[in-house]
Each structure stands twice: as C-alpha cells, then as structure tokens.
C-alpha cells in the first residue's frame, strides 16, 4: 500500500527571523518568514518553537499573518522567552506548526477580547474579521499600552489616548471599534476588565464573544457572558510537552453531554466553548 506522499507538512520548519519589536518593557513581537505556516495558519492556532537549550518547545499563538510572514507576541518571563528576545533579523528558528484548532468564525456581531499576551490570537482573529467584513469590536486589556507598536500604520493614535469618563474610545479601524483597557491608564479605559466589561457588552451587544487570556479573566468573561446569554469561544493554554496531542500532559476537563471528559488543550483545543470548560 502506498503511503500519503505529503509528509513533514507541519515541520520542523527552519524559519527566518525578520524582526523582533518591543511592544512594552517585557512584551515583544517577533516576525518570521515561512510560506507554509503563513498560508495555512488560522486564528487561535499556535506554533511551537525550539528554544535553545530547553528540552521542550514553547507554544505561541500566531498574532498576525501577512504574505509569507507571520508574527507572535510574547512576554519575557522565563528561559524560552528570554531566548526569543535575543533573536534578531536574519537569525533562524526551528518551528513546528500550525498546531491545534482555531476559532470558529461566524458572521455575527462579535466582541473579541484579548487580555495580556492573549491579545495575540485576538489580533489575528480581528484581522480576518476585518477582511471578511464581519462586524466586530476589539477589546484589549493589558497592563500598559502595547498597541501603538502592534498596529503599524495606525494613524489615528488619538483614539488610543486615555479616554475620559469611562467612555469607549473612538473607532480606529474602519467600521469597527478598538477598545483598550490598561491597568496603568496609559491608554483607553483605566482599570481592569471587571471594571468595564458589563458596560462594553451593554454597548456593543455582541452575539458572540471570542477571548484569549489568563484563565481567571476568561472564566470571568464566560460567567459574565452567560448572564447575557452570549456564547463564548476561549483559547486556553497550559504547559505542553508535545504540543501535538500524543503525551496527554495538557488535558483539561470539558463538559460533553453534561459529563466531564478529558480533552487535550493542544490537539482538541486550544479553542473550546467557554460554557463547556470546567475551570
């Protein structure tokens, strides 16, 4: 019997580093060049990067795709991300992916919420929503303003300035709004997600919410959305050993027909229905 001929479609790819840009003190955006990944990756999917002397690869959501290039956003936290921060133009990296399942894009008025480095897949998702002309509002919730460098070519920086009276800042991208919440108040609304989410939901009236961020934030979003009967898709993370679904290291309990079942975040997810996650 003849085997399928297309092997190695998910790598390892040796990819070129194009740039490594500072978004804030500890947050960076890395741009890589690789046609296969750029052509196939969907918002919510991730790539797994070999980080120098570390035994295990580190997973990162893809944050943006343009032509043959793709981006990731990372926060410098441990050895792996420290290694990433050392990469510069013309360096290469060993990457596998795209891995996991992306968000299910529906033509519904949507609220896209990214918290912390969880802005990465949300940024990519919003770009696709824009291209598909699906009505959406982006909500980024970060410690400090990381967006000025995130949206290159975004001229209307006025709207990123601190708004008064807790009002949602002006629209910055065509018909869709970008709302910022920064803990230090350096842009958009000051405070944390729970200070503003109810207001934003009441104003935007989303039919669906997509989110990525720390678990407590996503859990809060799911609970808040439930009150408004809005379905939520969450992109989860956890330490992965394989990232490909074989090791069973990253399983989480998900409600399936009202019974808890183990699902692998890396392979069955990382995107799940918020209402099904047993946090």
């Amino acid at each position, binding site marked *: *019997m003849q*085997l399928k001929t297309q092997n190695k479609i998910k790598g*390892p790819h040796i990819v070129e580093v194009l740039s490594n840009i500072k978004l804030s003190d500890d947050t960076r955006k890395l741009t890589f060049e690789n046609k296969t990944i750029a052509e196939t990756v969907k918002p919510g999917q991730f790539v797994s990067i070999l980080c120098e002397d570390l*035994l295990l690869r580190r997973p990162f959501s893809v944050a943006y795709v343009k032509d043959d290039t793709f981006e990731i956003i990372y926060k410098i936290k441990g050895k792996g991300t420290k290694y990433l921060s050392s990469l510069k133009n013309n360096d290469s990296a060993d990457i596998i992916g795209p891995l996991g399942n992306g968000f299910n894009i529906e033509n519904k008025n949507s609220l896209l919420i990214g918290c912390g480095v969880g802005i990465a897949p949300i940024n990519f998702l919003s770009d696709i929503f824009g291209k598909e002309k699906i009505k959406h509002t982006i909500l980024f919730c970060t410690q400090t303003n990381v967006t000025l460098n995130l949206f290159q070519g975004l001229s209307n920086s006025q709207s990123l300035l601190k708004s008064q009276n807790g009002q949602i800042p002006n629209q910055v991208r065509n018909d869709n709004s970008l709302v910022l919440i920064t803990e230090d108040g350096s842009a958009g609304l000051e405070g944390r997600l729970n200070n503003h989410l109810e207001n934003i939901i009441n104003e935007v009236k989303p039919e669906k919410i997509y989110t990525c961020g720390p678990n407590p934030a996503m859990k809060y979003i799911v609970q808040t959305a439930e009150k408004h009967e809005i379905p939520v898709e969450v992109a989860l993370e956890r*330490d992965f*050993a394989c990232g490909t679904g074989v*090791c069973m290291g990253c399983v*989480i309990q998900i409600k399936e027909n009202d019974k808890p079942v*183990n699902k692998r975040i890396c392979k069955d997810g990382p995107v799940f229905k918020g209402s099904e996650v047993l946090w």
Partner: protein
Amino acid sequence: MPDLIKPDTSVNIGKLKLKNPVLTASGTFGYANEYDDFMNVANLGAIVTKGITLNPRTGNLQPRIKEVKNGLINSIGLENIGSHNFIEQKLPVLRDNNINFIINIAGESVEEYVELAKICQSNNIEAIELNLSCPNVKSGCLEFGKDEETLYKLVSEVRNCFDNTLIVKLSSNVSFPERIAKTAENAGADAISAINTVKAMHLEVNIAAAGLFPARNDNIGFKYIKGGMSGSCIKPLALNFIYEIRQHVSIPIIGMGGISCFQDMLEFFAVGADAIQVGTANFTHPDLSETLVSELNNFMKQQNYESLAELVRDLRYEY
C-alpha cells in the same frame, strides 16, 4: 557506486523482524499515525503504542508534566482509550498505513495482563511490550517489575497465551537489575526493553522577603509533582542499567532513556542494546526517529558496514 548497495539495518527481536533498529517509545508517539505530519511513520523500525489497558483510563489530575533541567517529569497516569477502542479504531490505521508496531499493554492484575495478551493474540498482533514499570499508577504495573516471584508468574502466564514476540519493559527503580532481567528471560520473554521513566519529584519552595511563602502555618503546602523522569538527564542511568543486564541475559535488549541524537543511539548499542527507542526527544524533534534511520543508513554506507550486526559488534566492548 557504493550508494546502490543499501546496508542491511534489520534486526530480529524474537519472531519480529524489524527493518531497522529505531523504535519510538510508548507514550511519546500516540497510537498510530499521529506523527504523519512530521514524517513517514512507516519508515521506522516500529512504533510502540501508548500503553493500553483493558478498559479506558482517564489518568491523573493536573499537574501532569514538569520540565526540569534536561529532563521531563510526567504523571499522566496511563490515560488511554482502552483495548476495545484501540482494536476498533487504531489497529486498522496501523495496518492500512503499513506501520510496524508493538502494543504496550498495562494491567492492574495478572488476569488483566493475560486478558490483554489474549486479545492481542486473537488479533494476530506481532509483538507486545509488557508495561511493568509505569511509576504513575497506584496499583499493579510498577510492583510487577520489582519482585522476582510475581514477575515470573506474570511473564510466564502471558507467555502461555501469546505466541508472538513478547517484550518485557523494565524499570530502573530496582535493587538488582540483573536478577529482574534474568527472571523475565527465564519466564519466556523474547526481549527486554529498558529503561522506563525513573521515579522523580519536583517541588517549588518559595522564599519571600518575610520568609517562606506560603507561610509555615498557611497549610497550603508547596506546588509539587511526583512522577517518572525522562529525557537526556536519565541517559547515564539507562546506559549503566543496560550494561549491567547485558552480562546476564542473552535475549535482545531494546534500549531507551534520553536518546536524542545519532551518537546517543550508538552509545546504547555499545553497552548492549540491539535496538533503541526514542522517547521524550520526539516532543522536541518530532522527526528525530526518522532522521536517525537515515543517519544510520548513511553512516553504514560511509563506513562500509553491510549489516547492523557488524556495526554493533564493532561498538561492543567489555567495559
């Protein structure tokens, strides 16, 4: 052109004839063709499936994995789909894709191992690997691999109902490796595979400005994981274990424990292994096992080795 002569990399493990000595270790490669996105799985000597139990298991609670320096501690707890689902869903995939495979089986009692072996026999499975050493399940498994008497009983009973290649996977967490290995051989094992993960623990003691965190009387305890360690940090243990048992058994040994490059593979041959399994390194380099196959071929061509047996002979040495 010497290139036209393909060196003979085959090796026999019991009745099982492997086209090359590169296998992938149980629990690191899925059930069947999961790694197809990274290689042609059929190019490998064989894959060893995820450990299969009679009934499905949901495994342990989180945390299940922790990376340590050059190693990985796991506490998966044998989560698997169970023998019935495996035979129904995965066996056809293995056969349709011409993947050579060995089924790793784990039981909680002698009866369960025997029942699993019978299921394998009735499905004409060519080879099974008895998981006698999983450190992450509370009953069964590990205990069978420690005590010579129970090991003998278990292996011989499985032997009585399974005609094809029977491999016994051993733990290094034993006082007398050579006795355990010899017992497996005497009980009818066709081969030994070693080593399984090594019992290990990781915890984090945090010190804050005010002293210990959490504080002494918070009664929260420290974050910890107990499990089995794998990765390159266990390679020296594995090499020594295999070297020690090689002197005492004549059946083939499938060596594993921290293999992450071609050189590592040769080291295992040198101390007594006849074939090897790549484990944790599959996570880091998902195409490593296939790369080892081609590196072995190239090396043998370059060095004019016609057969693997010849190469292994040259590597062996009474250390």
